């Protein structure tokens, strides 16, 4: 019997229904659907899928366990290397990682590894399948983690699982990093994040919120109290374009726009106190995942939402699934255009953007065709809200106040490739703070590698 070429489709809420709220879009597999999808796996001897996963989950074995209906076993296999599968199953760019190299992809659709991973985690959560072993704190070392995004969380969990005392410092009032303040609930519900993070509580990780290292607690103080420090402060500082009109009212960085809506729940204003301005027509400059999230939030805020991008959609760095969802929900893609300035009215509010037309030329360093601005093609488009989503840089509060920790010109923390230590003894770093804006799973991979290296360092 030849395996089925097509994937078992994932049920999703329709665009009309879902754009009225911030609830999740894909509904996930039922146990029967998950088992059926799992049966498509060839259990390849070489299993290239494992190498495609930055944390090397034993994919064929967990998929096999699902096929056999052994969901708890599947969970244990995944959790062996990935402590937040409900999150990665939702937000990993699987099509470029595990699924890209899946052998089934040669004859049909690759196995839907991400959605299976999500299924296992969701099923385990809903049916209380997880057991957290009581771990004896038997190590004499104390470790501090700075930043509670996916990188810090992964590192913290590994230390706790290995019997270390772990204390995590987080600048904001909630843990989770970008998962909480950036990625909207319709892609990653808070309930899911909170559950995954409860695991840290159960492992007795001491999470100290509202503590900004370099601002209200110094690195030196941490060095006195801890034997090693892992810095995973992310890339949270917004980039602006330096355009005329960026200071107008109604212009947001993507971080501000998303933080107001997601972390502070401005979409429920005035029930929640944090406001966001009324919007009818929103222009989002940029076309990555962050831009898609902002554009899809704007739709849910009741606005006409536009992506403004200088290349064509096929060259967008966003995931195909995100672009597809954005299109279904009514986001308009205005491509091959580059902003010249933001136009304001006499009261200081945004009223539009002046744009150049672009054409695509020879590929640039990123391998994508470079956009060329065409002279004398200026044209205006009306917008009452503009969101700038052209990327983030490492947040400087940490490194500007961390004497001895050196950074690259753009702010990325310098580490030793071998042992992952910064230029300061005993201080290690990883995630977006080192790599610049990347992905959840790469940040987690860094957290794992750092934990291993720090343990070696401590145990000598």
């Amino acid at each position, binding site marked *: 019997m030849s395996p089925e070429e097509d994937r078992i489709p994932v049920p999703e809420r329709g665009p009309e229904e879902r754009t009225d709220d911030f609830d999740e879009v894909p509904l996930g597999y039922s146990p029967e659907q998950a088992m059926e999808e799992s049966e498509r796996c060839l259990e390849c001897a070489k299993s290239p899928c494992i190498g495609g996963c930055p944390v090397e989950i034993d994919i064929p074995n967990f998929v096999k366990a699902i096929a056999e209906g052994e969901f708890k076993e599947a969970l244990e296999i995944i959790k062996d290397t990935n402590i937040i599968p409900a999150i990665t199953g939702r937000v990993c760019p699987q099509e470029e990682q595990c699924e890209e190299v899946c052998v089934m992809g040669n004859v049909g659709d690759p196995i839907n590894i991400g959605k299976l991973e999500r299924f296992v985690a969701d099923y385990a959560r809903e049916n209380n399948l997880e057991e957290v072993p009581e771990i004896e704190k038997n190590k004499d070392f104390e470790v501090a983690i700075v930043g509670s995004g996916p990188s810090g969380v992964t590192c913290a969990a590994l230390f706790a699982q290995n019997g270390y005392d772990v204390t995590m410092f987080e600048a904001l*009032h909630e843990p989770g990093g970008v998962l909480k303040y950036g990625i909207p609930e319709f892609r990653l519900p808070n309930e899911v994040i909170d559950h995954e993070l409860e695991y840290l509580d159960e492992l007795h990780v001491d999470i100290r919120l509202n503590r900004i290292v370099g*601002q*209200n607690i110094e690195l030196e103080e941490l060095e006195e109290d801890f034997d090693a420090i892992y810095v995973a402060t992310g890339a949270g500082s917004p980039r602006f374009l330096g355009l005329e009109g960026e*200071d107008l009212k109604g212009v947001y960085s993507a971080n501000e726009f998303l933080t107001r809506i997601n972390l502070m729940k401005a979409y429920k204003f005035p029930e*929640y106190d944090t406001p966001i301005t*009324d919007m009818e027509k929103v222009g989002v400059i940029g076309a990555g995942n962050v831009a898609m999230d902002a554009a899809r939030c704007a739709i849910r805020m009741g606005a006409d939402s536009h992506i403004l991008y200088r290349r064509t959609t096929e060259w967008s760095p966003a995931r195909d699934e995100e672009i597809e969802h954005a299109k279904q929900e009514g986001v308009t893609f205005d491509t091959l255009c580059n902003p010249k300035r933001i136009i304001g009215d006499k009261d200081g509010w945004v009223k539009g953007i002046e744009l150049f037309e672009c054409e695509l030329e020879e590929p640039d360093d990123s391998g994508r065709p470079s956009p060329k601005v065409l002279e004398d093609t200026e044209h205006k488009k009306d917008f009452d809200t503009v969101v700038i989503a052209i990327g983030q840089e490492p947040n400087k509060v940490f490194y500007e106040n961390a004497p001895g920790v050196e950074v690259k010109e753009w702010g990325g923390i310098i580490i030793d490739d071998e042992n992952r230590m910064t230029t300061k003894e005993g201080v290690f770093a990883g995630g977006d703070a080192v790599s610049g804006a990347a992905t959840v799973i790469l940040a987690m991979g860094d957290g794992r590698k750092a934990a291993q290296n720090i343990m070696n360092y401590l145990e000598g």
Partner: protein
Amino acid sequence: MHEIVEKERLNEEMTRIEVKAPLVADKIKPGQFIVIRMHEKGERIPLTFYKKDEDKGTIQMIFQKMGKSTHELDTYEEGDEILDVVGPMGTAAEIEEYGTVVCIGGGVGTPEVFPVAKALRNVGNEVIVISGFRTEDLVVCENELDKDCANELYITTDDGTYGREGFTTDVLEELIDQGTDIDLIHAVGPPIMMKVIAGITEEHDIPTRVSLNSIMLDATGMCGSCRVEIDGEMKLACVDGPEFDAHKVNFEELMERITMFEEQEEEALENWKEEHEGCCG
């Protein structure tokens, strides 16, 4: 959770609270601020630190009722708890021996200059304080300023009901005209006041620093909501400031940007008043 250990309504508009926050009390310095979030649904609002007591582990702030959040905060009583208190935030005021320093506070800016003026006096400066209010009933901190930090104290009211009639800037101009040798000016108050001061002192070449009250969200340097233009460059008031060289600030931009959420703020306050009408008066 942070308990309010003392609360005092100073007048119709301003209230002083003393809050338990030992970690903050340990470290906070004049010119720095804190961010509070009252409850799960609350926004993050910045308030400048006014006084502290390290032994008790408390900090004090004076706030003015503006919109919904500060009205609600005013309903909190002794024993009530604030969910989050984050700080110290921002950079501390530079405290050195300059010679003669004029500290100017406008309205609720006065309690914000108090700790700075006091620290400046403690290191040996001659400190002149000019403090302005709309009317007599709103005057605060006079005794503290007089007792703890001002070599000379001038109170002004817009309507002349107390102290001198007029604005803080009128007194400043008088001092300059009299030939007072001023080495530094530290001013906190409404942007328009700071702008006028910057204009006067630029003409006379007097170094002047101001504390900017742009709209903040996270106050950790992550969102850009508080961005201000300093010397043609974008800076974040929450982490690069709030204190800046007055002569380099683009005040027009600041004054525009702080009105960005006016419509929503009005709606929130009206809603809140409707719900609380009669219950808390």
